[in-house]
C-alpha cells in the first residue's frame, strides 16, 4: 500500500525508530498527533527483535497492541547504525574493483587525506597522520584500459566532455572479472575517470562483467560510481562506491528483515529509513549508502520541527546516547550539510549532516591506563549498560548509579534492576585505588572528564564556525543527555537550554517528522561566459530544463516503485554554480524549476550571486569572469503525515503532589545532597521544578542541580535556568 494522503486519514499511527548503539527507541505517534516512546535494548545480531520489543513497549504505554498499531500504521521509519558499524568493524562484502588503468593504487593512496578527523594540533604533529584501512583488498583492484575526457575549466575548448580517448578494453574487463570471481569477490565496483560527466564507459564495462557472470552462472551486484555518486573528484567518488559495495547491500538485507517483522505485525506499507542529508526512503532505494548516518539526522530534523514551533533561529543539538555525544547545528533553520562527508577516516562524495562527536556516552568504558591516566571510551558497553547490568567493565552509567544520579531500581521504568554494589566495587578497584582517591571523588572525577569533553566540543563546534553561543538555543536529548546537561552546558552562555519529556526518543521523533524525499544530483559542465547570445542562453536553459525533466522522471519512477502516488510528488530545484575558473561550486536553491530562456537563466544567476554575497565580502565577487554550472539537483518530496505538537493549558507553577516521588541523596559538587525526585509523566505544562531535583522517567533522568530551575512551557518543553 502506498504512503500518501489517499490512505493517510486521521485514524492512523506513525512509527519511528532510532536503533542506536545501545537502545532502540520506538516513537509512536497517535492519531491525534500526540505520541509516546518505547524502548528496548539494541541487538545488533537480531534487529527485528529490538524492533519488536521496542514497538511492543510503546504500544503498551497507550494500552494498545503492536498488531493494532501496525495495522493502522501509515508510516514506519527505522534508523539504524548498521551501515556505519559494518564499515567500522570491517565486516562488509568482499569487494572487487575495476578502475581506469593507471589508477590501481587509488584505494591505498586515497588522495592522501591522512588527517581526517584530527584537530589542528594533531594535524600539526605529523607523526599522527595515517591512512585508513582500505575497504577493498588492494590485490582485488584491477586496471582497465579506457579513457574519456572531462572537459576544461577554461571553457568550451579543446575536446568536448565525454570524448572517447581510449575505448574500453573488453578483454581486460573479462579477464579481470574472472580473476575477481576466482578470488572470491562478492560484489564488483567500477570507477572510471570522468564517469560523472559521461557514464557510458562504466556502463559498457558493467555489461561485459555481467556477461561473464552469466556465463559462469554467478549473480553478483555490479555497481558503477556514476550511478552511486555522479560528481567530480575520483577519490571521493571511489569512497562512495566502496561504501555502497562494502556495506549497503548487507544493510539492505538486515533492513528488509526488520520490514518483514513489521509486516508480520500486519503493517501494509514499506519500511522507511533516513538519508544522511534528511529525507526518508524505503529499502528499494538504490543508493542506500546515503543512509550511512540516518540516526543523527533524525535529531536534526526534530530540532527543525521544534525550532519552527518555538520560532528559534539557531539551535545547537546535543545528543548523548550510549556510545557517543553528537553535536549538530541548525543555522537560520537550516541543517548544516557538508558536501564531502568525512566518516570513519573516509571522505565521501555524499552530502551529509554536519556533526561533531566525541566518543563519550553513558555506556563508554572508564579505565585507567598504565600511565595512570584516566580514560573514558572509546569502547562502549553498548546494550550491556555497564558493570551494574551485563558488562564486565566500568562505564559512565555505573558511576551515575554509584553517585545517585541514576536510580538503580527505575532503569527502563524498573524493567531492569541495576547492581549498584557491583558498580561501586569496580569503581573502587579499577579507578579509585590506582589513582589514590576515595571512591566518590574518583566517580566525580570521571564525570568531570566526561562533562568537560562534551563541554569543549559544544564550544568549539560553534566557535570554529565563527558563531557565538549566545545566538544559539541548546537542545539536548538522547537517553543520557538530561543526566549530564548540568555538566556539558556549564559555563556556556546560550539563548536558552531546552529538552523534551521524550528526550530519550528524540531522534526517533525527528525521524517521524522527516519528509518522504529523494535527492538527485547530476554533474554538468555548462559554461556561461559573459556576452552570450540569447540563442546560446536559450539552448542552455533548454538543456537544464531537459536535465531536470530526466531527474523528475527518474524520481517518479523510483518513488512509484517505492509505492508513492506519482501525482502527489512535489519537486524542489537547485543548481551548483561558480564563477568561471573557480573550483568549488556553491549550492543554490531556486524558487521553481521554470527554465525556458535567458530571463530564467538570469534568475538562477541572481540567486547564485545572492547566496554568494551572503557568505563572502563584496570583494570576493567576480561576475566579469562569467559563470559555470557544475550540477543541477532535484529534491522530490512525497506527502507523509507528521506528528503534531499541540499547546496545552498551563497548570500552576507548583507541580501536583502526585508528581512528587520522594527524595534521593546524590553526590553532587563534592558532597551528598538530597535531591527531590519527581515523576515526568505527572508534570504539567506550566510547572516549575527547583533544584536540587531529579525528574525521573522510564527512559531518562533529568538532573537539576541546586539553584537551578526547570520550567515546562505550553508544549511541555523543559527550559533550564
Amino acid at each position, binding site marked *: 500500500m502506498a504512503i500518501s494522503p489517499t490512505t493517510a486519514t486521521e485514524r492512523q499511527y506513525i512509527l519511528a525508530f532510532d536503533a542506536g548503539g545501545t537502545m532502540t527507541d520506538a516513537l509512536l505517534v497517535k492519531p491525534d498527533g500526540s505520541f509516546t516512546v518505547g524502548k528496548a535494548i539494541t541487538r545488533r545480531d537480531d534487529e527485528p527483535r529490538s524492533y519488536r520489543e521496542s514497538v511492543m513497549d510503546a504500544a503498551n504505554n497507550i494500552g494498545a497492541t503492536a498488531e493494532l498499531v501496525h495495522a493502522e500504521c501509515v508510516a514506519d521509519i527505522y534508523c539504524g547504525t548498521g551501515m556505519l558499524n559494518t564499515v567500522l568493524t570491517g565486516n562488509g562484502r568482499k569487494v572487487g574493483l575495476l578502475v581506469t588503468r593507471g589508477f590501481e593504487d587509488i584505494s591505498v593512496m586515497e588522495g592522501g587525506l591522512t588527517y581526517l578527523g584530527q584537530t589542528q594540533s594533531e594535524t600539526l604533529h605529523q607523526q*599522527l597522520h*595515517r591512512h585508513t584501512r582500505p575497504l577493498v583488498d588492494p590485490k582485488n583492484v584491477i586496471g582497465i584500459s579506457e579513457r574519456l575526457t572531462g572537459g576544461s575549466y577554461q571553457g568550451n575548448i579543446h575536446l568536448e566532455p565525454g570524448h572517447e580517448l581510449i575505448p574500453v578494453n573488453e578483454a581486460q574487463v573479462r579477464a579481470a572479472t574472472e580473476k575477481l570471481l576466482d578470488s572470491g569477490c562478492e560484489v564488483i565496483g567500477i570507477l572510471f575517470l570522468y564517469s560523472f560527466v559521461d557514464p557510458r564507459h562504466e556502463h559498457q564495462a558493467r555489461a561485459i562483467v555481467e556477461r561473464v557472470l552469466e556465463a559462469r552462472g554467478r549473480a553478483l551486484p555490479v555497481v558503477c560510481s556514476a550511478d552511486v555518486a555522479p560528481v567530480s573528484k575520483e577519490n571521493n567518488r571511489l569512497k562512495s562506491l566502496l561504501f555502497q559495495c562494502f556495506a549497503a547491500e548487507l544493510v539492505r538485507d538486515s533492513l528488509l528483515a526488520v520490514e518483514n517483522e513489521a509486516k508480520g505485525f500486519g503493517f501494509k506499507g514499506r519500511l522507511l529509513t533516513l538519508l544522511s542529508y534528511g529525507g526518508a526512503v524505503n529499502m528499494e532505494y538504490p543508493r542506500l549508502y546515503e543512509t550511512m548516518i540516518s540516526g543523527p539526522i533524525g535529531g536534526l530534523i526534530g530540532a527543525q520541527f521544534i525550532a519552527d514551533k518555538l520560532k528559534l533561529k539557531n539551535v545547537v543539538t546535543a545528543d548523548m546516547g550510549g556510545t557517543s555525544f553528537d553535536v549538530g547545528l541548525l543555522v537560520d533553520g537550516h541543517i548544516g550539510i557538508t558536501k564531502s562527508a568525512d566518516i570513519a577516516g573516509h571522505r565521501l562524495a555524499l552530502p551529509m549532516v554536519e556533526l561533531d562527536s566525541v566518543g563519550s556516552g553513558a555506556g563508554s568504558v572508564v579505565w585507567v591506563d*598504565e600511565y595512570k*591516566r584516566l580514560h573514558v571510551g572509546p569502547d562502549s558497553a553498548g546494550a550491556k549498560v555497564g558493570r551494574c547490568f551485563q558488562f564486565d567493565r566500568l562505564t559512565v552509567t555505573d558511576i551515575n548509579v554509584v553517585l545517585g544520579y541514576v536510580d538503580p531500581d527505575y532503569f527502563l521504568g524498573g524493567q531492569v534492576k541495576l547492581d549498584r554494589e557491583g558498580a561501586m566495587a569496580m569503581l573502587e578497584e579499577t579507578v579509585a585505588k590506582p589513582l589514590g582517591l576515595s571512591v566518590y571523588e574518583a566517580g566525580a572525577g570521571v564525570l568531570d572528564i566526561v562533562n568537560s569533553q562534551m563541554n569543549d566540543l559544544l564550544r568549539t563546534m560553534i566557535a570554529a564556525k565563527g558563531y557565538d553561543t549566545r545566538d544559539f538555543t541548546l537542545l539536548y536529548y538522547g537517553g543520557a543527555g538530561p543526566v549530564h546537561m548540568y555538566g556539558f552546558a556549564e559555563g556556556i552562555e546560550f539563548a536558552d537550554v531546552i529538552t523534551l519529556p521524550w528526550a530519550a526518543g528524540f531522534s526517533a521523533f525527528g525521524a517521524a517528522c522527516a519528509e518522504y524525499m529523494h535527492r538527485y544530483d547530476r554533474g554538468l559542465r555548462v559554461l556561461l561566459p559573459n556576452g552570450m547570445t540569447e540563442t546560446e542562453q536559450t539552448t542552455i536553459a533548454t538543456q537544464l530544463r531537459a536535465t531536470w525533466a530526466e531527474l523528475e522522471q527518474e524520481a517518479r519512477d523510483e518513488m512509484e516503485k517505492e509505492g508513492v502516488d506519482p501525482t502527489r510528488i512535489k519537486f524542489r530545484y537547485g543548481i551548483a554554480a561558480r564563477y568561471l575558473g573557480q573550483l568549488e561550486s556553491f549550492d543554490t536553491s531556486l524558487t521553481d524549476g521554470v527554465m525556458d530562456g535567458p530571463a530564467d537563466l538570469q534568475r538562477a544567476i541572481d540567486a547564485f550571486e545572492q547566496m554568494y554575497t551572503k557568505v563572502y565580502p563584496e570583494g570576493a565577487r567576480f561576475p566579469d569572469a562569467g559563470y559555470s554550472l557544475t550540477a543541477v539537483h532535484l529534491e522530490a518530496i512525497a506527502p507523509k503525515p507528521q506528528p503534531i505538537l499541540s499547546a496545552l493549558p498551563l497548570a500552576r507553577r507548583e507541580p501536583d503532589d502526585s508528581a512528587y516521588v520522594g527524595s534521593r541523596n546524590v553526590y553532587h559538587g563534592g558532597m551528598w545532597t538530597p535531591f527531590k525526585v519527581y515523576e515526568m509523566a505527572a508534570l504539567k505544562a506550566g510547572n516549575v521544578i527547583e533544584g536540587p531535583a531529579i525528574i525521573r522517567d522510564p527512559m531518562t533522568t533529568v538532573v537539576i542541580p541546586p539553584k537551578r530551575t526547570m520550567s515546562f512551557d505550553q508544549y511541555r518543553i523543559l527550559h533550564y535556568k
Partner: protein
Amino acid sequence: MNEDVSISPELIGQLIDGTIDSDNAQRLLRLERKDKGRFFQYIDALQQRVAWPEKILLRLGDKLYIVASAPGKRVVKCACGHEFGDYRQNWKLGCKIRVKRTLDDMLTVYDPAPACPEPDIQEIREFFCPVCASQHAVEVVAPGYPVVFEMLPDLDKFYREYLGRPLPDEGSDWYQDRTDLVTREWAKAG
C-alpha cells in the same frame, strides 16, 4: 597528571624491537607531554639487550652506544662489543668504509636507474663495524667531503641539567670535537 606518567617496560621493549602495534604507538604519540622517566627505562631495556656489562650512557644508532667503559672513559661501542674509542672523536673513523662511485655500483642500492645519484657529483659511503660488519651509517655526499660527525652530545649537560642525575666523571673537556686528533696522527703516519 601527565607529570607522573610512566610507560610500561613492555611497551618500551616493543618499540625497541619494532613489535609495537600502531594503536599503542599512537597512544604514545598522543601523550601531550612526554613521560619524564623514559630515558632511564630505555637505557635499562637496552642494557638488558647487550651482551656486555659497560654502562650505556647514550644510544647513537640501532647498534651503537656511548658507554662508560671505565671511570673517566666514555667510548663508542658496537652492539657486538667492538669499541670505536673516545666518543669525542667521530666513530666513523673507526669503521671500515666502502664507497660506491660508479653508476653500476649505485644501481645495487637505488632503483629504478634514474633514481641513482650522479657519479662524480656524489658518492655513496657505507660505514661498517670492522668486527660484525654492521652498516652503522651511509653518506651520500660529494667526493672529497669530510666525513660527517653526525652527533656530538654534551653528556655532562644532558645528565646534570636535562635528567638531573649528574655523571660521576664530569669534566670541562667532555664536550669537544677531537676528531682532528685522529686525522693529525694519520697525517703524521703519512
